[in-house]
């Protein structure tokens, strides 16, 4: 892959910068000069990308060959990788809101934490977050019927409120704790929580294969989730192997062969989604 490096010239802007142009789809095929001239928005002002970043490195002809490395903390930059279809973006620090929202392919790696709405309504690709994620990770935008519809988000740390709201397809893995309302309104898709799962898990979850798997403690389940049984389902081995082999989460293998408690709901809305909670001890 051809590497283009963006070095922030400023830090900690009080008004965030909207820079969906930081995407292989936009940058591939341009010259360095053209990249510097790409339009970003600071508040209601349209400005040049080059005013906020030093641009160096190489530009690929195709998005799939483009690697963009953002060197440093850009928690003040929103929409990095939004809508991208291919290529790779690496952020060597924190990133702002809407990272990878509506992306359909490629990979984003954030070494630090991300703001709200990361991976919102994404349909494909992989987002790896080394730190924590804000609220509404992989969620549906307000007024939208469906959130994440494909792809994978792996947060090594914790995730905020309403993770995976309205999720329809894809996989979200939370290495740490999950805040309340994780998986609310889910209608498909899979969420793994390796840490502690907070209240209102899967609230108003429908069916269609919706699945939340808790490998840590669960604070409280809604009474509208019905306990079915405790068993050791074979399918879990497939998911846990995928987590280990494709995402490098080796500790997932510790749960292979462990029994799970199966809850079905949310019966409040006639849902037949599932929450599986690993049996402790």
């Amino acid at each position, binding site marked *: 892959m051809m590497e283009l490096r963006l070095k922030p010239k400023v830090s900690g802007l009080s008004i965030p910068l909207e820079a969906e142009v930081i995407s292989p789809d936009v940058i591939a095929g341009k010259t360095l000069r053209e990249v510097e001239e790409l339009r970003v928005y600071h508040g209601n002002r349209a400005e040049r990308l080059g005013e906020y970043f030093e641009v160096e490195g190489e530009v690929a002809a195709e998005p799939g060959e483009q690697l963009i490395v953002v060197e440093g903390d850009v928690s003040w930059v929103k929409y990095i990788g939004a809508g991208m279809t291919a290529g790779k973006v690496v952020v060597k620090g924190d990133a702002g809101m809407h990272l990878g929202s509506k992306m359909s392919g490629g990979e984003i790696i954030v070494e630090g934490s991300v703001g709200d709405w990361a991976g919102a309504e994404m349909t494909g690709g992989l987002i790896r977050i080394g730190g924590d994620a804000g609220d509404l990770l992989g969620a549906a935008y307000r007024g939208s019927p469906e959130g994440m519809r494909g792809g994978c988000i792996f947060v090594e740390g914790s995730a905020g409120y309403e993770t995976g709201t309205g999720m329809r397809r*894809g*996989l979200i893995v939370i290495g740490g704790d999950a805040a309340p309302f994780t998986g609310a309104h889910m209608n498909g898709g899979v969420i793994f929580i390796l840490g502690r799962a907070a209240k209102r898990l899967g609230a108003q979850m429908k069916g269609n294969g919706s699945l939340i798997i808790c490998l840590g403690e669960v604070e409280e389940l809604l009474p509208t989730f019905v306990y079915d049984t405790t068993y050791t389902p*074979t399918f879990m081995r*497939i998911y846990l192997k*995928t987590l280990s082999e494709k995402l490098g989460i080796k500790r997932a293998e510790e749960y292979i062969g462990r029994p799970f408690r199966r809850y079905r709901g949310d019966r409040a809305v006639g849902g037949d989604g599932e929450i599986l909670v690993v049996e402790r001890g």
Partner: protein
Amino acid sequence: MEMMRVNGVEVEDTFAEAFRMWGCRVIITAKNQKWADTAAMEMTGFATSVIMCDCEAGIERRLSEDETPDGRPGTAVIVFAHSKKTLIEPLVRRIGQCVLTCPTTAVYNGIPEEEADAMLDIGKRLRFFGDGYQVKMRLGDGWLRRRRFWRIPVMEGEFLIEEILGAKKGVGGGNFIIMGVDEDSTLEAAERAVEAIHRVPGVITPFPGGLCRSGSKVGSRYPFLRASTNTPFCPAIKHTYPESQVPEGVNSIIEVVLNGLDEASVRRAMAEGIRAAVEVEGVKRITAVNFGGKLGKYQIYLRDCLGGEVS
């Protein structure tokens, strides 16, 4: 008929007449090898020949925990039928009655989509056994290879099956005949041949223990019977059957029949089998069954299989 010699044994310069068949590899896993084998044996029962069975099936090999999708011990089975269409029904019935019912088993596709000529909706059909409580399992959407499975509740737990299974155009009816001086030497040679054949990937031997002692020929003197034993090769009637092809000194004959997922595998397996068979003392001659080239798409010549090793 011209003869070659391999390890001093006569090998007729003839060909095995084989047919186009569609094959599907099914990977069965279970809690342990015992139950994977049990399901595989049940599933491949009564599947020797399409003369009277709905398919031809056999166990390809055992799979280690590293080779299966769920990390459990497994057994690979290959099922063959005349066409893609006629392959579906035996798969649905056999998996439905022999694997779904077998404790702890799961079923996975054994031919990846890029290698398959068609993907068959097998799990998709079997899901109805869940009576509405089956759950669709999705994997890889938008970031890995997209895969679908069905989780079907059963009394023991849950049966997991991949939604589609890969099938490809293969070859059925690869064969060779071992002629020996007595039953012991012929059987030992045939057993060794089958053992060698099973080292070739993508090949099964659908008959009992891989062996067909009756042989078969097209038609019979009875109008209701479309195939009969291979009377020209029956030593018991070699001096009374007018067109007997049993050589002097031969008193027992066994046919080894094999099907493969491609022609090259069948050729290689035939060669491995013949080479193993001719090592046994008492084997007098090797030949193959054909119908004059009128019925089958493939003519697999023994001399081609054995390559430069003919002496």
